[in-house]
């Protein structure tokens, strides 16, 4: 059996030309048929099919399953399903998706179904699919906010696939490194595939020590950046730039830093929204038939199960009204704050101490003695960070800037069931709270507001998502802002990840600037 002949080429499916997709699908169908026939033949003769062959077929079928559910092109969805069916008729066990929907936290029915999107979203999906050959769960959750998603995908596409100082496999490897810092297996899986696809050396995947020295050097920066970015000094930068034959160039370093921060915050999003594994990746599908009781542990966790919903209702009657008051109280506070701004002027010390209190509360990782706060006026994204990034990695500054802007200014003027609410104060509180956790201080912000607007469970959620995303649980997700819509919670997540990315970037870029001066 000629391997090359059976090498499946998925990229034809990404074409916008339906006839090209048709050809690619037909090609895939034939390959599947051949492989399945081969398997069957060996089964009939009694000899066990070699595991490798079985494995290959299963991977193929899993990919088809993903396509049948997640491809933005209807023809591909239908045809993939047909191919799967025909394989099943031949007695091959076909996979079925595990779990329900792209997120474990958000019920599938809340999330846009592929195929029912409007024209704008379809264009987005098609773009994403064309670029990556898949429509990942992150995209499906983010599509709650198409305006942001567009900018996000554009940036990500540029970072990973367009011209840039780093080779393609390096980019994916850095993504893997960053995601692995937060044990985000979802992102790691995705990028392992991509990494291999662009010709990366599989040996590197056995651990950082198998990667080139140059990438190993980046490990330290990755670690500090992910957990304590304020500790980054120009010595870190110098160490990377002046490492003999393993040194990074400034442009490469900026590219790497942007990638690292991007994937750190994307890991936050993945955990913060409980993104499920991709259908074609490990843990996204199973070949086992559904069990008799139709009971699956993941159904319970994401609220798709009837029983659970009933439980919530019976136990939640009280909490519904309670949480209703939460929203009301929040609105009330916002109004108050808006009205009585000109209260007694707090002294610098007072303001500083409010900031310090917030910071101390938010940082469970701080050891005393780390002097880590700086005023944003000294180094802010708009004036300084942007210029540096754009200087060293042209166009990316612009893209990220746009993304920050969209994330920060995104609003639908709604809050839970209320309409026409000015949410800028709330958004600013969230943004500044996150920056406060990173020790970035705004002189013109009264950190007392944070305490009034963000309640405890919300703060816990924010802290966890931003600092230790791997510890986020569905309980945390459910227990904040109970009356708010899922789309609003996703919106919060967007704020979180962008604020985090900006904070990390600022520290890294500040260190680079200091190195340069």
């Amino acid at each position, binding site marked *: 059996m000629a391997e090359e002949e059976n090498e499946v080429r998925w990229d034809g499916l990404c074409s916008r030309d339906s006839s090209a997709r048709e050809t690619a699908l037909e090609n895939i169908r034939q390959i599947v048929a051949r492989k399945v026939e081969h398997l069957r033949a060996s089964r009939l003769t009694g000899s066990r099919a070699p595991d490798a062959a079985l494995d290959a077929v299963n991977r193929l079928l899993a990919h088809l399953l993903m396509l049948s559910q997640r491809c933005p092109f209807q023809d591909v969805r239908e045809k993939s399903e047909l191919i799967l069916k025909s394989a099943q008729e031949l007695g091959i066990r076909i996979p079925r998706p595990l779990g329900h929907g792209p997120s474990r936290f958000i019920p599938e029915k809340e999330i846009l179904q592929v195929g029912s999107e409007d024209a704008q979203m379809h264009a987005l999906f098609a773009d994403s699919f064309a670029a990556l050959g898949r429509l990942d769960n992150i995209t499906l959750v983010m599509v709650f906010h198409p305006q942001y998603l567009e900018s996000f995908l554009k940036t990500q596409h540029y970072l990973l696939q367009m011209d840039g100082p780093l080779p393609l496999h390096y980019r994916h490897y850095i993504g893997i490194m960053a995601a692995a810092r937060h044990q985000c297996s979802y992102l790691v899986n995705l990028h392992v595939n991509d990494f291999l696809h662009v010709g990366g050396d599989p040996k590197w995947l056995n651990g950082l020590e198998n990667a080139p020295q140059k990438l190993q050097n980046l490990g330290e920066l990755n670690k500090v950046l992910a957990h304590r970015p304020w500790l980054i000094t120009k010595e870190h930068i110098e160490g990377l730039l002046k490492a003999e034959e393993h040194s990074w160039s400034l442009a490469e370093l900026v590219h790497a830093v942007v990638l690292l921060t991007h994937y750190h915050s994307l890991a936050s999003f993945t955990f913060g929204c409980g993104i499920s594994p991709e259908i074609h990746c490990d843990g996204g599908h199973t070949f086992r038939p559904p069990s008799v009781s139709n009971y699956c542990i993941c159904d319970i966790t994401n609220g798709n199960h009837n029983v659970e919903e009933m439980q919530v209702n019976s136990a939640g009657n009280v909490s519904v009204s309670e949480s209703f008051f939460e929203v009301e109280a929040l609105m009330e506070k916002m109004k108050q704050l808006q009205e009585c701004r000109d209260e007694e*002027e707090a002294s*610098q010390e007072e*303001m500083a101490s409010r900031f310090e209190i917030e910071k101390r509360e938010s940082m469970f990782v701080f050891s005393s003695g780390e002097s880590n706060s700086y*005023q944003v*006026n000294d180094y802010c994204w708009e*004036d300084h960070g942007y*210029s540096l990034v754009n200087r060293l990695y042209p166009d990316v500054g612009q893209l990220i800037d746009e993304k920050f802007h969209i994330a920060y200014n995104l609003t639908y003027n709604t809050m839970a069931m209320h309409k026409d609410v000015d949410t800028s104060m709330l958004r600013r509180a969230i943004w500044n709270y996150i920056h406060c956790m990173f020790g970035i201080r705004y002189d*013109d912000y009264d950190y007392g507001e944070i305490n009034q607007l963000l309640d405890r469970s919300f703060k816990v959620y924010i802290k966890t998502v931003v600092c230790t995303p791997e510890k986020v649980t569905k309980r945390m997700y459910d227990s904040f802002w109970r009356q708010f819509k899922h789309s609003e919670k996703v919106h919060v997540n967007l704020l979180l990840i962008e604020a985090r990315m900006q904070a990390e970037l600022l520290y890294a870029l500040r260190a680079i600037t200091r190195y340069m001066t």
Partner: protein
Amino acid sequence: MEKMSRVTTVLTGRTMHCHLDAPANAISVCRDAAQVVVAGRSIFKVYAIEEEQFVEKLNLRVGRKPSLNLSCADVVWHQMDENLLATAATNGVVVTWNLGRPSRNKQDQLFTEHKRTVNKVCFHPTEAHVLLSGSQDGFMKCFDLRRKDSVSTFSGQSESVRDVQFSIRDYFTFASTFENGNVQLWDIRRPDRCERMFTAHNGPVFCCDWHPEDRGWLATGGRDKMVKVWDVTTPRAREVHCVQTIASVARVKWRPECRHHLATCSMMVDHNIYVWDVRRPFVPAAMFEEHRDVTTGIAWRHPHDPSFLLSGSKDSTLCQHLFRDASQPVERANPEGLCYGLFGDLAFAAKESLVATESGRKPYAGDRRHPIFFKRKLDLAEPFAGMACSALSVFETETSGSGISWFVDTAQRYALAGRPLAELCDHNAKVARELGRNQVAQTWTMLRIIYCSPGLVPSTNLNHSVGKGSSGGLQLMNSFNLKEMTPGLGGETWLDRSKGDTRSDTVLLDSSATLITNEDNEETEGSDVPADYLLGDVEGDEEELYLLDPDHTHPEEPEYVLPQEAFPLRHEIVDTPPGPEHLQDKADSPHVSGNEADAASLVPVDPSFSLISVSRALHDSRLPPDFFSTLVRDMLHFYAEQGDVQICLNQASTSLHVNCSHCMRPMSGRGWVCGRCHRCASMCAVCHHVVKGLFVWCQGCSHGGHLQHIMKWLEGSSHCPAGCGHLCEYS
């Protein structure tokens, strides 16, 4: 000079600096030009500028508990009142200071109306009590210092305000710049809406400055690394000058008494202060390099003295720069430049004085071994300020006029058939390179790349006539057989010199026999026009060869670009602009070539003209447009115009498509029967039979017929045999 008279004392001083305790964010000069205030996050001091040094005069940062109100983003000193200062605090407070207060604390008034950091404050240039502020919260506020709060608020639609500046000339006008790249002009009396708005930069506009003398000139600097000078007196703000710097522009200040000079400093990476002449936007006029970190504030010491510049920096120093101590990048710049052009042209720029001394020399005099010489084509001396006068010369290579040996060589050695196209191209490239014609060689190489990469070869039926043609005596190159130049085709390498000679001999020797040979070729049969000519110059200017090969057998032709005309060829030729028309006309009549008497007159024809037209017609009509990339067509035209037909010929096929004379539809299929109106198109006017061989026709009345018949007819009569009354002319 009324203005000058205001400079009472002549300023003196030297380039000097002093250390501050903390990074500065902004500086401002007192109107007496003897004091400067420095403000920053944790510094707020007044320094006296003395002859040799700065002397700290006053520390305004007092009190045990320093408030955030003292964390200054900007500071401004009133230009009318020596005691009045204003600061913008990072927490959004605007503070005024009265140095005349007896107490240690000079703080005067506190305006806490802005919600976000105030980026800029500005006093009215002539009004004692009017202060303007611009803040991150998107509002600009105008304060009357005699009142407790603002008198008016201007909304920037929630875009952060980065700078506000009162116009120096127009009492009521101020400009504000925004983070989204816009600049707005306001009338201080009309807070409801701005008078004018325009987008000045891509990204935030960090600063602006009104020209001190030119009314309506506004300089803006932005994150996009540009300084732009706008004329806002016109109905639409007009960009007058633009200076591209190397980093985002944090401050811009017009230089006093120098109409076109302005000073800039940047926000990131670059620590120097530049003074630009906006008319020379590429090289700064002066550069101050004292600071070790970014410069945050610049101010000219006196509004009428152009030589003293003060600056504050993040490196915690305050500097006074003297213009005469500035470094001038122009001096360091290498004023000579040399560059090769694509076609071997050479451009050379140098100081004019240098060029002048050398112009006596003959540039190509030295070495005769080089076959090229330089010709000075152009001299663009720029009468511009002082030192930097340079002359630009462009030299072009000229082929030596010593003859056309390369032409003959090329003709002899080019291979146009008989081998796969890739090899042919390679071979020809080699030939061209050996003859020193590198561009031509490149072209051949490119052709190979374009047409010989695998997968590019379409299966169009382009050469289906080739097989038949090879049997015919005079089948022409049926070009662009891209699959490969089949040997069948190669049988007729008509540029091949020996064959070409014999053939042309045949043509010249026998008046009609040559033409008749074509009748053997079934493809040449039947057309109502003498469909095709190929003008071959086998030996430079010695002979012209007219060949005839009507070829109509392309039923699956995708499209016809030819005009819906019965005489396409003629029109094609007329299209080519400067062609000697009488010759073209002669060329239209095939029997001329058989006419020895006329042979001489054909000699001087520039060979390229008909070839261009022929090849163009073919490309247009014959090949699918995507296949024959426009690039290659352009290339062919280019060479054809250069007179280098040897390349073009290779492309030239000789088929031509004709239209039915009755219904004006393109003829297809057999060629002499119109597939649409089912009538025979080309009838002989003499014998009334279909002409399937050579067709000769009068260009006046378009009647014609078999060559022999027409010739016979014309011996007896000069009128048209069709009876149309036309006095036919055949050349």
